């Protein structure tokens, strides 16, 4: 009846996961209970859970990402504490538990921390920057989000029910085959990533279509803000790369469930093929995450330098060059598998070539500040912290692209330090820069600067304090994923890295405090102008938070930096443009399709993991029925009357007129 599931799946004999799991369950039930009994459920259901508004979905993605970043960070605390005590000692985490933790850390940080954070920013910002009312497929957007949430839920369920994979975040066969990993851990990984991956792919299709087909009148490709360009590149990469991951994991699933031999190294199967396919997705994935990060920095540095982005077209070229090159380097993940001089030489060189457009970007950000008026706000600090730390990560990356250097550094903690250096700088710093930058747009009040700056300084200091020692200990020959070790020379550096985690943790706490303090003092931090940073792109043209329809009338774009152009014209002519004539706006209706679909997907995933075949069938049937019901719906849209639109826009215009007047008062 319940497949492999029995009471023994609960960690009743292991205190650490039991207590952690119980705490999470209690907190979760507490939150749900509070929502229900305080009567917030109808509001949440109507305004958020069933919302198809890209802004709401974007915010939910970011919230998911932030929560999962904290979950991934708790894994860091466990891993670093284990290594701090596990010198000539078994430490407090046995291997079967430690191995799950580093696997979960990588999986969660990449798929459920970084991805939702970045996709959330793109979801929220791109339609606003393009001057349109929503993404191309609003309901699909909701489905994408909820499927990602399903994946995150499944991974976290494994904490309490059963186990997670013990293979590392890329489950390389033969270790991940059923012979060597007979438990449900790898199955949790496979189904969580497959379900979330479908969500990501659909989100990629959605945003690509939006950018290619739905721009405001006059917004040609070369007038799009840099963030939209990087979002386009990132989503094209999602569309091109995620099917590879889905197919690869499907093959591994067939191996595990139906006795196929794709990757078993028996009967013609080959485990190398898994590595090739996985990294053919995996390396573009790095740029799926990093490119929108570069976009955030471009927006932030330009805005807070009060200048246009330096060499915009060059930046566009560099972005698209990275898009193409990212598919040509995957083999550098196995220089040490003996492919020979020619293959290693070629892939070493192609990997380095990516550093050229990336280097150009760094220099262009530098020259964006040149001749500017730099305001050191929290988002700007994250951006500067990014440039300074990222170049080190880039340089160590180029170093690892030199095959003879990789022969001694591959899989070492030097490598671990390298990819954390680039990923944390380019993705997490970008995430926080974007979070601080667009927060007032989303909620109508700014984040508290003091706590934001404290979070920045502790996080960056902690980040350097963790990874500088890991670079060193990698040079001393320490390899990754060691549950314990006996080499005395490694110990001081491992301890130093563990101490760095404490500093980083203070940064995390400051980040949480910043949000709480900002919400409590929202009236002081209120931004009524809709344009708190003197922005340059169209998201700043509408009110904060924007109405469901984003813009009363779709803006006309006459050049790069669409909103800057509008503001310039208003300053020159000393008045706003003529009031447009308002029309009613049609917006898509809310839909529960996404969340219901995700509910059934959770059933399917959980059932497949535990071999409960009837439940999997039920889940599939339910998901299909949900789609059929959605496809046969009668009402698709609702109308917002012209008066509502006009009332909103007149209020927004009044704030802009006031801003213009105060500018003139100051000039006088």
């Amino acid at each position, binding site marked *: 009846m319940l497949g492999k599931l029995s009471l023994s799946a609960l960690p009743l004999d292991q205190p650490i996961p039991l207590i952690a799991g119980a705490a999470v369950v209690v907190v979760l039930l507490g939150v749900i209970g509070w929502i229900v009994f305080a009567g917030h459920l109808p509001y949440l259901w109507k305004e958020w859970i069933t919302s198809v508004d890209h802004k709401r979905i974007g915010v939910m993605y970011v919230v998911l990402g932030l929560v999962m970043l904290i979950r991934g960070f708790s894994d860091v605390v466990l891993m670093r504490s284990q290594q701090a005590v596990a010198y*000539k000692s*078994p430490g407090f985490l*046995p291997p*079967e538990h430690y*191995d799950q933790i580093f696997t979960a850390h990588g999986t969660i940080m990449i798929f459920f921390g970084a991805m939702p954070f970045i996709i959330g920013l793109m979801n929220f910002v791109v339609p606003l920057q393009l001057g349109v009312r929503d993404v191309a497929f609003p309901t699909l957007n909701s489905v994408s989000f909820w499927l990602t949430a399903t994946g995150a839920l499944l991974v976290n369920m494994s904490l309490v029910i059963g186990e997670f994979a013990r293979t590392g975040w890329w489950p390389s066969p*033969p*270790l991940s085959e059923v*012979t*060597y990993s*007979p438990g449900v851990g790898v199955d949790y990984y496979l189904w969580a990533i497959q379900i979330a991956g479908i969500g990501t792919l659909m989100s990629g299709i959605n945003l690509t279509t939006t950018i290619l087909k739905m721009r405001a009148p006059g917004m040609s490709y070369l007038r799009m803000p840099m963030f939209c360009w990087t979002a386009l590149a990132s989503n094209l990469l999602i569309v091109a790369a995620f099917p590879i991951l889905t197919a690869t994991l499907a093959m591994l699933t067939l191996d595990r469930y139906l006795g196929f031999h794709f990757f078993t*190294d*028996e009967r013609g199967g080959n*485990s190398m093929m898994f590595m090739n396919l996985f990294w053919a997705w995996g390396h573009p994935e790095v740029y799926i995450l990093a490119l929108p990060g570069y976009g955030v920095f471009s927006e932030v540095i330009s805005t807070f330098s*009060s*200048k246009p982005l330096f*060499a915009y077209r060059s930046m566009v070229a560099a972005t698209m060059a990275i898009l193409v090159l990212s598919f040509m380097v995957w083999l550098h993940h196995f220089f*040490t598998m*003996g492919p*020979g*001089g*020619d293959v290693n*030489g070629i892939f070493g060189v192609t990997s*380095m*070539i990516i*550093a*050229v457009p990336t*280097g*150009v970007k760094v*220099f*262009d950000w*530098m020259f*964006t*500040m*040149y001749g500017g008026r*730099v305001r*050191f706000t929290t988002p700007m600090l994250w951006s500067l912290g990014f*440039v300074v730390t990222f*170049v080190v990560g*880039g*340089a160590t990356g*180029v*170093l690892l*692209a*030199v095959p*003879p*250097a990789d*022969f*001694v550094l*591959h899989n070492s903690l030097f490598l671990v330090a390298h990819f954390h250096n680039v990923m944390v700088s380019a993705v997490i710093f970008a995430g926080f820069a974007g979070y601080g930058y667009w927060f007032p747009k989303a909620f109508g009040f700014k984040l508290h600067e003091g706590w934001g700056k404290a979070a920045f300084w502790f996080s960056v200091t902690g980040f350097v304090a963790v990874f500088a020692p890991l670079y*060193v200990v990698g*040079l*001393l*020959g320490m*390899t*990754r*994923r060691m*549950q*314990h070790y006996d080499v005395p*020379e490694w110990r001081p*550096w491992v301890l130093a890295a563990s101490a760095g985690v404490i500093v980083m943790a203070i940064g995390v706490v400051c980040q949480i405090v910043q949000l709480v303090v900002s919400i409590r003092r929202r009236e002081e931090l209120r931004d009524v102008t809709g344009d708190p940073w003197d922005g340059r792109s169209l998201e700043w043209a509408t009110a904060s938070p924007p109405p469901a329809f984003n813009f009363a009338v779709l803006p006309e774009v006459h050049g790069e930096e669409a909103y800057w152009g509008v503001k310039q014209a208003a300053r020159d002519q000393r008045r706003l443009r003529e009031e447009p004539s308002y029309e009613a706006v049609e917006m898509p209706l809310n839909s529960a399709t996404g969340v219901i679909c995700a509910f059934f997907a959770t059933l399917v995933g959980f059932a497949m993991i535990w071999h409960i075949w009837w439940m999997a069938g039920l889940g599939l049937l339910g998901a299909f029925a949900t789609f059929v019901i959605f496809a046969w719906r009668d009402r698709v849209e609702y109308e917002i009357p012209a008066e509502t639109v006009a009332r909103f826009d007149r209020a927004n215009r009044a704030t802009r007129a006031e801003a213009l007047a105060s500018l003139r008062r100051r000039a006088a």
Partner: protein
Amino acid sequence: MDPGRHGRRGRIGRGWRILGRVAAVSAAGLALSGCTGILAPRGPVGGAERTILFDSIAIMLAIIVPTMIGTLAFAWWYRESNTKATYRPDWAYSGRIELVVWSVPLLTIIFLGGIAWVGSHDLDPAKPLASDKKPVVVQVVSLDWKWLFIYPEQHIATVNQLVIPVGTPVDFSLTSSSVWNSFFITQLGSMIYTMKGMTSRLNLQADHEGTYHGLSTHFSGDGFPDMQFETRAVSPDAFQAWVAEAQGGGGQGGGGQTLDDRLYRDLTKQSVADAPKTYHAVADGLFERVVSGKLPPGPGPNAPTGGTPPDVTPKGGTM
């Protein structure tokens, strides 16, 4: 010069001194711990790789240090409160700067690309080392979770201990009985993967007598951290003596056993932190039978004849 300015310079000077002290302490720490790892190579392969590593680091520091300083300097000079800085609100393009901005990384990469290309050929692990001595042949099998070394020419085999003569190239052929591992002696250079059904090649040489740390660098399951072995590089005479002793049934963990197919199967069962072992003889063609799959792969955790599951609790420090 006004005193305030002097004061600031003094503060900056002190900052630099502290920074210098930190750097000196770190460098000293690194030097002290430099008796291990890839920074202290004891053979030609590791030596060449360290040179390439240092050259590449130097080239890249020449680019990134000015970039870091430039970024901070630009941001600081053009801060909003600095009235001396000129504001150019519309300046967003300069062909000359663009030329430099594309050329600098491009030229660096062309240079480093050359190093990478030449280096990957010169230091290809499969390439035999130039030497007038005949290489010692060693066949390596990674097992769950220990290393098996077969000396086909000497007809002996060892577990978790590798003995090689100094000044003589060692020609490794490597495979795995089950999951992937990666074979690495940090001070001799070049790691290489071991994969089931495949043979990888590696050529190394030790130039100095000593005991070197060997490990697996690719995660291979719960027993992974104990996949370590000692590599003893000894004089050629001592090596001959060791071989003779091993053949006679001696050596570390020796017991006069012959490693045949049956014993090999026992060896493939999962175990952790095995003490070093020596076999006085080894069945012919054992390695080839492992690679071709004629001998069954490691049975994994659910070994059919295994009895009790292996105890994977690490025996810390017992190695």
